[in-house]
């Protein structure tokens, strides 16, 4: 295990930048977001969590596939080269690390491999970062409800825990081991640090967000039973504006649209995030739209995460990061809907 002083974090950042792209939380107008770092001094670990999830490191909101010229033969269109370089995703909270595992199911696990996600994922090393157990969890978070600890190192290549003014870094995978060995700016941790690390991981498992722990299967079943209960869905979706804020900040929402965007004859076929909360998400070419009502769309979102996903793939497609709740303009809280459903 290694350590560094938090005040010297930019030295570590600079060394990582020498090896690849460093993607870390950066303070912006509305809060923090993961961005590629251009100046090592930008790295700031004084954050709770980012507004937008780190999924955009592997699955950017816009991904260009092919460039073309209108009126020209399709064979003259050129695929956009995937320029993948090693990347370090730095300061990812345990719940967000967990989200990558869920997203892997869809982008690689089902057999239909998405090369964009896969290659970026393979080229990246994840530096997970424990929540600060000395500050209470944000009121919107519920990751412990879903069985995710505040300091779970699983899924990270290197896991980081803050100890006073120091940052402890422990290699979790061989990739992380190799990386840490190459970081000359780090010093060796003491036996005391090792104990602190293990104690924090254990304490992280006992750290509680709101709600008590839940089991996936009974929830999945409950939502299947509630599907036709329009009264329930209308009630919980009364306030919903049907905007896409919740899905765009979500670490496990993966729906996208493929668009041809052309300007003055020059076109790009690109993938753009889409949201099941948008009216035209399900609009068919015939003009028919199977989900015209707000309650139908919110029902889709909740049931996808808490019912269909469980039935098809096993895990709940939610990590309790609380971003959707924080981003919602009308304070809709997905787990309160689950809670209400279980009582219904």
């Amino acid at each position, binding site marked *: 295990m290694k350590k560094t002083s938090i005040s010297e974090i930019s030295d570590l950042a600079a060394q990582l930048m020498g090896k690849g792209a460093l993607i870390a939380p950066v303070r*912006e*107008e*509305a809060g923090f977001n993961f961005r590629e770092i251009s100046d090592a001094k930008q790295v700031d670990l004084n954050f709770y969590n980012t*507004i*937008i999830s780190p999924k955009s490191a592997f699955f950017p*909101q*816009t991904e260009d596939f092919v460039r073309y010229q209108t009126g020209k033969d399709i064979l003259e269109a050129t695929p956009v080269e995937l320029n993948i370089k090693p990347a370090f995703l730095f300061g990812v909270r345990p719940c967000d690390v967990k989200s990558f595992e869920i997203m892997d199911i869809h982008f690689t696990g089902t057999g239909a491999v998405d090369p964009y996600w896969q290659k970026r994922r393979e080229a990246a090393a994840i530096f997970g970062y424990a929540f600060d157990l000395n500050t209470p969890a944000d*009121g*919107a978070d519920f990751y412990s409800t879903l069985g995710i600890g505040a300091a779970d190192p699983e899924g990270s290549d290197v896991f980081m825990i803050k100890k006073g003014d120091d940052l402890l870094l422990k290699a979790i995978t061989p990739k992380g081991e190799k990386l840490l060995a190459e970081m000359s700016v780090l010093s060796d941790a003491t036996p005391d640090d090792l104990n602190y690390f293990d104690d924090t991981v254990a304490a992280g498992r006992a750290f509680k967000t*709101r709600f008590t722990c839940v089991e996936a299967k009974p929830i999945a079943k409950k939502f299947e039973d509630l599907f036709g209960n329009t009264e329930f869905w209308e009630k919980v979706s*009364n*306030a919903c*504006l*049907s*905007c*896409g*804020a919740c*899905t*765009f*900040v979500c670490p496990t929402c993966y729906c996208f*649209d493929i*668009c041809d*965007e052309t*300007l003055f004859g020059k076109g790009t076929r*690109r993938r*753009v995030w889409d*949201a099941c909360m*948008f*009216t*035209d998400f399900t609009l068919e070419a015939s003009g028919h739209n199977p989900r015209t009502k*707000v309650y139908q769309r919110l029902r889709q979102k909740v049931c996808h995460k808490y019912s269909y996903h469980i039935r098809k793939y096993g895990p709940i497609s939610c990590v309790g990061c609380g971003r959707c*709740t*924080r*981003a919602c*303009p*009308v*304070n*809709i*809280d997905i787990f*309160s809907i689950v809670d209400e459903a279980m009582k219904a």
Partner: protein
Amino acid sequence: MAISFKQIEDKLKAEAKKLLDTGTVTVVLAYGQGYDEKHPMPYAAKNAADAANIVFNEYCAANMARYLVRYPRGTKIAIAVKAADSRAVIQLIQEDKVKREDLVLLGIPVYGIKNFKTGEIIDSKTTGGLYNPVLYDILLGEEVHGQPVNSPYDVLVQYEAMDNEARWVFWKKEFDRCIRCYACRKACPMCYCDPCFIDQNKPKWGEKSPDSQGNLMYHLTRFHHLAGRCIDCGECSRACPVDIPLYLFHKKVAKECEEMFGQAAGMSIEDKPVLVNFRVDDSDKILA
């Protein structure tokens, strides 16, 4: 205020119960419990028992007027309105989206309402700076008088100090941060178009991907669609997950409209929206 938030809540509950009990209305649009006290939610009470779930506190910033167009025409609705919200209702009446006789306006005179995301008091910064509803049937409390009345345009000082070039740079930078979640248009009581121009693809007015061109097309068009109609509730800015200060543009346009046409949006049901009305003495300033 002469009365407290709690007293307003009690009055809201009592009026809602009465209106639903007597069948005067079929729904009361007010506020309900969210996941904690600081995060109340818009709430639709549909029977007398629901009325007990109504809450009102300093975080009830939401403008309920946006929900009016969701109900079929002719639905009898009671709606809780703060100052800006009442202006939205008036504007919707002017635009014939709702009828005055179908509505019972539960007026809430209030100041000190906070943005639940930041805790910041929103009076006159992102809203019109009024404390009393412009129009109401039942007033829940007493009109607020003696509070300092700030101009809703005071916050424009810094913006107006910028020249055209600087404003262009400012907005380009702001719009580049937009993630196109459309929370702004969905939170806006005046954005009721179905479909919104940006969702159309025949013709296609703007790109779907969140890059400069599409973002600029979306926001500038939306800004202009709201010219003379924005009632300065600030909901677009509060809804934005990345805090783009949309209210600055809306306030600037509102100010220009008021100067040119002598009329602010949503102040009287007798008014016509400035951009659908023609008067021979209309300002020619823009042509000069």
